[in-house]
């Protein structure tokens, strides 16, 4: 599956670079200093007149398969002081990152049989990936860093760390990571962050609704566009509840009612995420999000990344149904404890 996507993705990447040549921010010319509206980002003169595709009922057409795979980190690395790399710098960084990913498995080892990153298309370089010269996904604050935490936020981080202290990852299913439990991927969001692999999305629109399906764990959001209010605060969900509206040709989605169990960068369940989707070419949706969580950060912050068109389909990601890994690690952990206990009882010769 991944292999197949990978092959297709390589072709998409080449066409993606060509299609993006005209985009100022993505290409690094005239970078906007502040939180840019999609129009500003896509404001360079395109090579040819591009017409926003529309659905039969007149919405901008965001439908299809998209990837947000990227090597650009959320926060700007400490050593970097500029907002954009040159195309040469970006290419070199990309090459190095891909080779680091591929080096995770050495040929001929057990790891290699399990996860050969290059063969199975698990490294990001084989995904459809929109070129992005940014040095960080965060565009506001301008330093590309998550703003300082509030006292509340720091206390919550400490409490979360204390709660897991002394608990082994394989003590129980519940003490394992959310993704290993097939509950939800850390980056499922919102906001939607790229995963290590399979960072693929399927968007389908009908009058009054936009559906976004994430390949990983078939996480899905059906976003109503009818202006309804968020539900009662008692309704808490892993992915929150999303409400959308069109502002011009930009889809704006506001999400609240998180349950706080998959906190994005240590956010609280009171986080409000405002996402913006704007199709800027046949090949690219510019995706941006603003995080507003006054109980965690001293100010709101905003990130932006292009989503690259890719070819479908998405395959069924029945994660929980085939979760032999979780079962086997728990069995293995109990067996090791048992052996250790037996060894301790056996008198040393």
């Amino acid at each position: 599956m991944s292999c197949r996507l990978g092959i297709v993705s390589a072709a998409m990447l080449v066409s993606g670079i060509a299609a993006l040549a005209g985009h100022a921010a993505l290409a690094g010319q005239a970078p906007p200093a502040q939180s840019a509206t999609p129009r500003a980002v896509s404001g360079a003169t395109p090579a040819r007149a591009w017409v926003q595709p529309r659905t039969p009922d007149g919405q901008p057409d965001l439908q299809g398969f998209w990837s947000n795979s990227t090597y650009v980190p959320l926060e700007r690395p400490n050593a970097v002081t500029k907002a954009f790399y040159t195309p040469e710098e970006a290419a070199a960084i990309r090459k190095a990152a891909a080779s680091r990913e591929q080096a995770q498995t050495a040929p001929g080892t057990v790891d290699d049989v399990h996860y050969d990153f290059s063969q199975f298309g698990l490294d990001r370089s084989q995904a459809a990936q929109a070129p992005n010269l940014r040095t960080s996904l965060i565009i506001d604050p301008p330093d590309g860093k998550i703003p300082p935490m509030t006292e509340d936020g720091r206390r919550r981080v400490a409490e979360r760390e204390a709660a897991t202290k002394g608990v082994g990852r394989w003590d129980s299913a519940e003490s394992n990571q959310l993704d290993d439990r097939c509950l939800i991927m850390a980056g499922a969001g919102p906001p939607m962050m790229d995963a290590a692999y399979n960072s693929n999305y399927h968007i389908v629109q009908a009058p009054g609704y936009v559906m976004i399906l994430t390949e990983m764990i078939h996480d899905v959001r059906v976003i109503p566009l009818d202006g309804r209010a968020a539900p009662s605060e008692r309704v808490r969900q892993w992915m929150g509840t999303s409400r959308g509206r069109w502002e011009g040709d930009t889809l704006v989605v506001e999400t609240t009612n998180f349950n706080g169990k998959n906190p994005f960068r240590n956010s609280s369940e009171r986080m409000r995420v405002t996402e913006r989707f704007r199709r800027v070419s046949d090949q690219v949706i510019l995706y941006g999000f603003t995080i507003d969580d006054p109980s965690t950060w001293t100010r709101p912050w905003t990130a932006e990344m292009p989503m690259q068109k890719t070819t479908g389909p998405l395959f069924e990601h029945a994660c929980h149904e085939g979760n032999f890994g979780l079962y086997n690690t728990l069995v293995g952990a109990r067996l090791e404890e048992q052996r250790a206990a037996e060894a301790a009882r056996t008198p040393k010769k």
Partner: protein
Amino acid sequence: MRLRIGTWTWVAALAAGVVLVSVSVVSTQQPAARAYRAPRAPDGHPNLNGIWQAMNTAHWDIEAHSAGPSAVRDLGAAGAVPAGLGVVEGGELPYRPEALTKKKENLADRLKLDPEIKCYLPGVPRATYMPFPFQIIQGGEHVMLVHEFAGAVRTVYMTNQTEAPADSWMGWSNGRWEGESLVVDTRGFNDLSWFDRAGNFHSDALHVVERFTPRSADTLLYEATIEDPKVFTRPWKMSMPLYRRVEANAQILEFRCVEFVEDLMYGHLRKEPRKQ
């Protein structure tokens, strides 16, 4: 006054009874009023967009059945099985003899074997009539069926149709419009999902053809023809109405049940027994 309330209660109860009986009859006997023409979606096809839900006991048993006790004693009446008149046309499933034996074993050992209990993807057609809503999102190239239970999603390919690339829980669906009906042809199933809580099952040879036909502004007729030569001696069909969730704020909510079954599935592998 008391008398009056009593009288009205009786009238209401009778009226409700009539409605219930007629609903039951419609669900298994009569085809929908074919004269109904659905409002059109912007692309000109019948508009099936909406949040839909079955209102019957097929999720307990697609065949006709009496009420029965709960499989879990502590759940008492809350876990008991409500009776149902069945949704299978002709009444009985045409099992091959050895398959009927397996069906009975499934039922007898349901708590261990029913994939629903483990929060596994529900398969087709079971997803349609579980006691949870699902939403139809009718795009041009893809019609999506988004189910609340386990967040199960089906993609119906209206264009670029291919054979199933691999077996899966929810199958591989190709769709087409036939007059007022959305017809969905699904193959490529694994042999792990069931039809209901009564142990009715299929093999990986399952082939389902579903028809979603608007029968009024707020109801669809759902028909599913089941073909599985490894399990059944002939194709058979189920049908039932689906009802629109007309609440203004209706939406598919999360039922991410994996965390609700972890203790059941992996609790015996905990390092320390669970704190009560």
